[in-house]
């Protein structure tokens, strides 16, 4: 049920963001969603693509430092208070959110969450009635 995400190390200077995007583009890999976290000195680019292994391979071959981490995808009810409702489930399950960003494909309001222990989170969220979107479904939405 987990979504694999690529994290890339970037230095905070012009041109650094373009390079990995060009590498993926040249390899014909479509980026489904991304988020950039930055400090004054460096940044971490997080990406979701369908073929994570191949993306990692082409990036590493070009000398980029890459990590693969697991994310949880949740459809958030698209009305006021919808996100609060989902987060309540997280809170009850005592799950800390490291970071999150939206997945903007296929009409639904989907959020990708990075939590401390994705395996435990997966189990507990199910118990609290939070539905996780499986990766196959997520990728299918992008194709639509």
């Amino acid at each position, binding site marked *: 049920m987990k979504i694999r995400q690529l*994290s890339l*190390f*970037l*230095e905070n200077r012009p041109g*650094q963001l373009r390079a990995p995007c060009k590498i993926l583009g040249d390899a014909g890999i479509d980026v489904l969603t991304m988020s950039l*976290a930055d*400090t004054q*000195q*460096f940044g*971490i680019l*997080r990406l979701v693509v369908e073929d994570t292994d191949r993306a990692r391979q082409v990036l*590493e071959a070009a*000398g*980029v*430092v*890459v*990590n693969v*981490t697991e994310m949880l995808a949740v459809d958030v009810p698209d009305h006021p208070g919808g996100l609060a409702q989902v987060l309540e489930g997280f809170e009850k399950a005592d799950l800390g959110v*490291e*970071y999150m960003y939206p997945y903007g494909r296929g009409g639904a309001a989907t959020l990708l969450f*990075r939590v401390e222990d994705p395996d435990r989170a997966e189990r507990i969220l199910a118990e609290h009635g939070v539905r996780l979107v499986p990766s196959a479904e997520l990728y299918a939405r992008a194709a639509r």
Partner: protein
Amino acid sequence: MKTLWNDPDGGFHPASAPDFLPRRELELLQLGRLRSVVRRAYERVPLFRQRMEARRLAPDSIRSLADLGQLPFTVKTDLRDTYPFGLFASPMGEVVRLHASSGTTGKPIVVAYTEADVQVWTSVMVRSFAACGLHKGDVIQNAYGYGLFTGGLGAHYGAEALGATVIPISGGNTERQLMVLADFGVTAIACTPSYFIHLVERAKEAQIGFGKLKVGVFGAEPWSESMREYIQAEAGIRAHDIYGLSEIIGPGVGIECLHRRGLHVFEDHFYPEIVDPESGAVRPDGCEGELVLTTLSKEAMPMIRYRTRDITALDPEPCACGRTLRRIRRIGRRSDDMFIIRGVNVFPSQVETALLRVEGTLPHYQIVLTREKGLDQMEVQVEVTPQVFSDEIRGLQALQEKLGQAIEQVLGLRVKVTLVAPRTLARSEGKAKRVQDQRKV
């Protein structure tokens, strides 16, 4: 004893015989050679003559090895000041070879060899390779640069005279180096330690093995014990430190034997002293100081008491290998490698130790010194590796903090640590450039 003398057939390379001379015989040989080299320098090189006369010294003033301490020093700037041929003691007709240093500032320094000098150089390189356990039948990949740099040809002549098979591949072209290493049955490689680490990294990336490689003869730049451990573990070889400098002869001034507890100096040709780097006073064996070398048999360009700027100590204790040659402690630093920042003396090797402690392996790094509003700043740029990369900002900030603390522990100095992307720092195909001093003094 014979089994230690390197020949699988039970003999030993005849060139290694002087390594085992009784001390008394060695000292007699040294004194005889010292007296004649001082005479040669006095009679043929105006600079030496003037300096000796200024001290009211004549060649006959040298009656014992201890008298060497009365002679004036020679320094690197003497070679620059007399550029190109001012210190030659042989007419050009007798000089068969010239080499020159890379010369980072201004003119290079030029060194000369007569035919006999080349023979001496070859013999000390044979003895060096033999001390590393190499012999006829070994295949030596010589990745030192061929050309004006002494490393390439010095190692080449020695390896050939040893009876080994030499691959004169010279430096650079990493892909070809790795292919030859794996395909040609190479058993030993000679290059700079930083270049070998570069080869190890690229081999890992390309998932290529090192074939039959068992010995590395690394020199031409200071390297640390931690680098040795890394090299030995990663490549599965025995790493030997070789010492030398163009001003004296090139590589082959000193070598680590199989025991690798210091480098045996080929004292029958190069007489070592340790002096106080400030006052120049001679220090006894065992004390740390600057290494000073006198060439005992050089014809074309004798060097009397040459200040190497290398910091080490002389170990007179007998070595388990049976060699009677004194050893110098491996040189972790040069006195001019050192820089002073906010009143603290810093050697790059200290920073290296700290980085290794945190990351487990040595990442590529560079030290950048700047001056902002009159205050010196030291920045250590460290390449991020997949092993230490964290997906979270605070993970990376924690790494930065840990590196900063480790450096502070070693230097007693807070420095700025910057994480940079892999392969952004200049890779050395030759000597590593670890320090960039951008301070305008």
